[in-house]
Structures are given as structure tokens and as C-alpha cells.
């Protein structure tokens, strides 16, 4: 491995990224320790566990996890591995359980992880204490406004501190619900991308690629009667060009004036004429609850947020919650959900889901082309020994607070933090 993967020269405005960081098995192994074992990693949303006993099984930073609500109502993230010989004790995707029973030898656990029953206990000595053999929880589990994160580093700062400026952007999502209750909508999109996981971090916030990668989506929107020209500058909350922002601790976001519609709450022709009144009503509720300025901030801007290292909240045509984990240097598993206010009416929910699919997901009009772009990058990276560096200097000659969404300032935020954490581990 080389010494430095990110070389930045602020005097000459150059920012070079070693392509070895995107192809090397040794880098991936080090990332597991330096990034995934030290950062707060998204697990799931409280709304996925509505009832006591509800559970969801998933992988978090490579570990099998049972995300569940116990009999008393408390939320846990238990490592899904029997204390006896290691089998997963819950093998269903989701459901409601009174207990988790290991199928191998029948060890049974309470929904809070406590070991309840061991078949044939007489074969164990007097020193065997069931209290020592409960399912092991992730070392830290905390939430911010119902978004639950795990951390495998007991010494890490609290989640609220870790999230830094990202909290404000999570608030802009959660405040869309009159009761502050957003929910994960049924139907999960789980798909692989044959590319390094960090390429999806970049892609999630890269507005430079919009005209070239998403030509057919732009054509579709125009054809559906949506005005895709950016609005004029005057009187807007943000510059019409949009910006890319550093939120601290490696978190970053785009922040753009909306001109392509939002279920909360900006009407476009795709929603249909009969939705106009309903969108206005949603808007009125926002204004009444939060005031004119805050309502406009929520309803009239799009934001693609990355919580370092691997959670994207895309608040645009709908709200996407997307997380992704590397399984090889050139492959990642992506999981994506749609998020919406819990109190949406059936018509509002249908509109949100429809809007989601215009752009997002493995059958959307845009996401498959993003995937194609990332896979093309990964193919090109095979020449990393000769073509060793990627250029990430776009916008660098401008001040840090003048970075556009089409610049790469926000992506440099990610890479600086990544580099800093990688340097901490030998």
C-alpha cells in the first residue's frame, strides 16, 4: 500500500485521489477497522419496529444483526449469533417474535437478548450461568429522531455529537411530518453495484453528472410538462445554482432550490391537476406549524445528505434512505427505502411512491444510469497502475463557502475525513 491516498495542494488548487483506494483488498480490510469499526453506522428506523416483539434482521458493517423491540418496548440491535455455537438465532427477514430460538440446538432467547432456556441443562456444570450467555448487543446503539445507529467503538463520542451539522438536515426531513413521525414505507430495494462503495458516496451528492448521466430523466420530466430550467436568482432562499456543504466530521450535503417538485410541498404537473389543492393544504400545515421561512426551507429545497460513512438521505422527488456496505473492493450491497410522514393519506402516500420511482431505484428512470456510471468507473480503475490518480479539484479555486452542488468541495469533505481515519490505524 502507498503512504497517502489523498494529496491536496491548496496553493495550486489540486486534489488528487489515489485510485488504489478504490481497488485494493488491503484498503478494504483497513477500512473495516478504521471506518466501519469506529464510526456510527446506520441500523434502521424506529418505525420499522412499531409493535413490541417486532424484529428486522439485516447486516450492519458486516455483522448479522437483529434490530428489534423487546416485550417492554425498548429497541435493541442484537448480534444474531447463538452464544452456544454461533448459528443465527433469527433467520426471517422480519416479523413479530415472542422469543428467538436457535434452530441448531434449541437455545432460546428473550426479545431483549437474555438467554431463557437451554435444552438439557443438567449436562452443564453448576458454574454454568445463563445470565452470562445472553445475545450480545452492538456495543453502542443510539438514535437521532428515530434514525438508529450502532457503533462498535465503545470510546466513540455520542451520536448527537458525531452527527454535527448533519442534524440540521435530518431535522429538515423529520419536520415534514406534523407529528415529527416519519416512517419507512413497506417495500425494500436491495441490489448490488459492481463498484467500490465510496463511489456511491460521491455519486449520491454529485450534481455535476446530472446533464450527462440523466439526459433521459430530464427529457422525461420535460415531456411530462415540468419546467426544468433553474429559477431566476432573485428572492430565493439559496443561490439558484445550489451548493455543496461541509457539515463537519465528514458529513456533507447538497442544498438546492427545488424546481422538480416535492410531495412536501411543491406541485408539479406529474402529480396531476387534482393534487394541486392537496399540495397547497400540506404547505398550509407547514406554514401554520413552522412559520413561513421554515416552511419554505423544507418545501422549496432539495437536499442530498451523506452521513459519514455510508448513509444517504436524498430529500428530492421523495425521501430515500439508502445505506451501502462493501462486500469486495469492486462490489457493494445497497439497501434503499422510501420515507414519508406517518400521517400521510393514502392518496399522498401513492403520490410519494410514484414520485420516488420517476427517479430512484433499480427500475427508476435515473438510478440504473448512476449504477452504469459507477460500474464504468470501476472498469476504468483496472488501469490504476498506469492511470493512478483521480482529480477531485473542481471548485477548489473558490472559497470553501462558495462551493456549488456541481463542484467537488463536498466530496473532498468525505475524502479528507476518510483519509484522516485511515491514517489513525496502522
Amino acid at each position, binding site marked *: 500500500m502507498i503512504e497517502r491516498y489523498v494529496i491536496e495542494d491548496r496553493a495550486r488548487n489540486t486534489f488528487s485521489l489515489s485510485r488504489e483506494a478504490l481497488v485494493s483488498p488491503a484498503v478494504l480490510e483497513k477500512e473495516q477497522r478504521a471506518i466501519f469499526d469506529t464510526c456510527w453506522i446506520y441500523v434502521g428506523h424506529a418505525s420499522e419496529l412499531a409493535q413490541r416483539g417486532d424484529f428486522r434482521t439485516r447486516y450492519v458493517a458486516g455483522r448479522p444483526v437483529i434490530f428489534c423491540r423487546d416485550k417492554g418496548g425498548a429497541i435493541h440491535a442484537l448480534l444474531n449469533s447463538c452464544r452456544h455455537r454461533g448459528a443465527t438465532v433469527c433467520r426471517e*427477514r422480519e416479523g413479530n417474535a415472542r422469543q428467538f430460538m436457535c434452530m441448531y440446538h434449541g437455545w432460546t432467547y428473550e426479545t431483549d437478548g437474555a438467554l431463557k432456556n437451554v435444552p438439557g441443562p443438567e449436562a452443564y456444570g453448576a458454574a454454568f450461568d445463563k445470565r452470562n450467555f445472553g445475545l450480545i448487543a452492538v456495543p453502542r446503539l443510539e438514535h437521532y429522531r428515530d434514525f438508529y445507529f450502532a457503533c462498535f467503538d465503545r470510546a466513540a463520542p455520542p451520536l448527537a455529537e458525531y452527527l454535527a451539522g448533519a442534524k440540521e438536515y435530518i431535522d429538515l426531513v423529520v419536520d415534514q411530518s406534523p407529528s415529527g413521525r416519519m416512517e419507512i*414505507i*413497506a*417495500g*425494500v*430495494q*436491495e*441490489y*448490488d*453495484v*459492481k463498484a467500490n462503495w465510496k463511489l456511491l458516496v460521491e455519486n449520491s451528492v454529485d450534481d455535476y453528472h446530472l446533464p450527462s*448521466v440523466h*439526459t*433521459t*430523466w430530464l*427529457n*422525461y420530466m420535460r*415531456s*411530462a410538462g415540468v419546467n426544468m430550467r433553474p429559477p431566476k436568482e432573485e428572492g430565493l432562499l439559496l443561490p439558484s445554482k445550489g451548493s455543496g456543504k461541509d457539515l463537519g466530521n465528514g458529513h456533507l450535503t447538497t442544498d438546492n432550490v427545488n424546481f422538480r417538485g416535492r410531495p412536501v410541498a411543491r406541485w408539479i404537473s406529474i402529480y396531476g391537476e387534482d393534487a394541486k389543492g392537496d399540495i397547497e393544504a400540506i404547505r398550509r400545515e407547514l406554514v401554520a406549524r413552522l412559520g413561513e421561512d421554515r416552511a419554505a426551507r423544507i418545501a422549496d429545497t432539495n437536499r442530498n445528505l451523506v452521513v459519514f460513512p455510508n448513509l444517504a438521505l436524498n430529500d428530492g422527488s421523495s425521501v430515500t434512505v439508502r445505506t451501502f456496505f462493501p462486500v469486495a473492493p469492486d462490489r457493494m*450491497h445497497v439497501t434503499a*427505502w*422510501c420515507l414519508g410522514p406517518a400521517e400521510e393519506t*393514502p392518496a399522498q*402516500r*401513492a403520490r410519494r*411512491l*410514484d414520485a*420516488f*420511482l*420517476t427517479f430512484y*431505484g*433499480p*427500475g427508476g*428512470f435515473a*438510478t*440504473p*444510469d448512476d*449504477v*452504469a*456510471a459507477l460500474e*464504468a468507473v470501476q*472498469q476504468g480503475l483496472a488501469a490504476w497502475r498506469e492511470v493512478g490518480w483521480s482529480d477531485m479539484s473542481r471548485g477548489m479555486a473558490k472559497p470553501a463557502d462558495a462551493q456549488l452542488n456541481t463542484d467537488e468541495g463536498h466530496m473532498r469533505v468525505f475524502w479528507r475525513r476518510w483519509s484522516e481515519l485511515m491514517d489513525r490505524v496502522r
Partner: protein
Amino acid sequence: MSDRRNTASTTREEVEEFLYREAALLDAWQLDEWLALTTADCGYYVPPNDKPDADHRSTLFTVADNHARLVERVKRLKDPSAHAEYPPSRTRRMIANVRIAGGDGDIIDVAANFVVYRFRRGGDRREYVGHYRYKLRRENGTLKIAERRAILDGEELGALGAVSFIL
């Protein structure tokens, strides 16, 4: 004009012939000709892998197109800027176990199994396995697709990656 002839007067052979012709058009990327097989109110759905029986109005689907969106999807797929499908994937569809599953009024419910092989350069071979549920309707004597649901068997899309072509 819809036609009152329904399930009773439609044979499996006729339905099979129709589905084979449809498959051939899709494999040949004759997408306009394929679109002509659909009714003006046709819906095309690919449900999510974890909720294959769900309703697209309350569950996030992979694809949930009304006819207008389907027309746009075909337009997109013919454009070289649809990067995920340029150059177009080579596909080969195997349609089997075709059954007339029922009917209601002028609608004929048809079920069939599918394996769709999709090839791209670099040894990229993906197998989409599942079943179709069609609602067919006669217009001026010929069968048309009023609804088309491609339901995948995989627990997740996983290595299939995307449903970027018409499945």
C-alpha cells in the same frame, strides 16, 4: 373497442402464441411494436422482492408504470443516453407453464413462468426468474395487455442489480 369474448372463448394456445410473440419483440428490442400490444390504460409492475403481493399505492415497487410512464420508458430505452441499457442488453426469454387463471368480464387473467437471461459484455450474465401475471383484453378481436406484472422469485435483487430493461 373492447370485446365481450372472454375466458371461455380464449384458448391456451392463443394466449401462448401471444406471449411468445411478445417475448420475441422484447428480445429483438422492437419496443414500439411491443408497446402496440398494450391497451391505453395498461399498467406495468415489478413488485419489490420482499413484498411480491403488495399494492404499488402503499408499497415501494421496483417499477410501477401507468401507460403514460410506460410510453416514456420505451422512449428512454431507445435513447443511447439510457446508459444502463446502452449498448442494449442481449436478452432471451423462456416462457413456460402458461395458464389461463380466470377472468372477469372482458379481462382474461393469465399466469406464466419466466426465465429471462440478460447478457452484457465482459461475461456479464444475469438470470431473472419469476412469474408473470397478465390481464389481457380483446380490442377489435385481438388480444392486448391491460396489465403486466413481472414478479421475481429472488429474496432480493442482489446480483441482478437493476431492472433497467423491460422484464
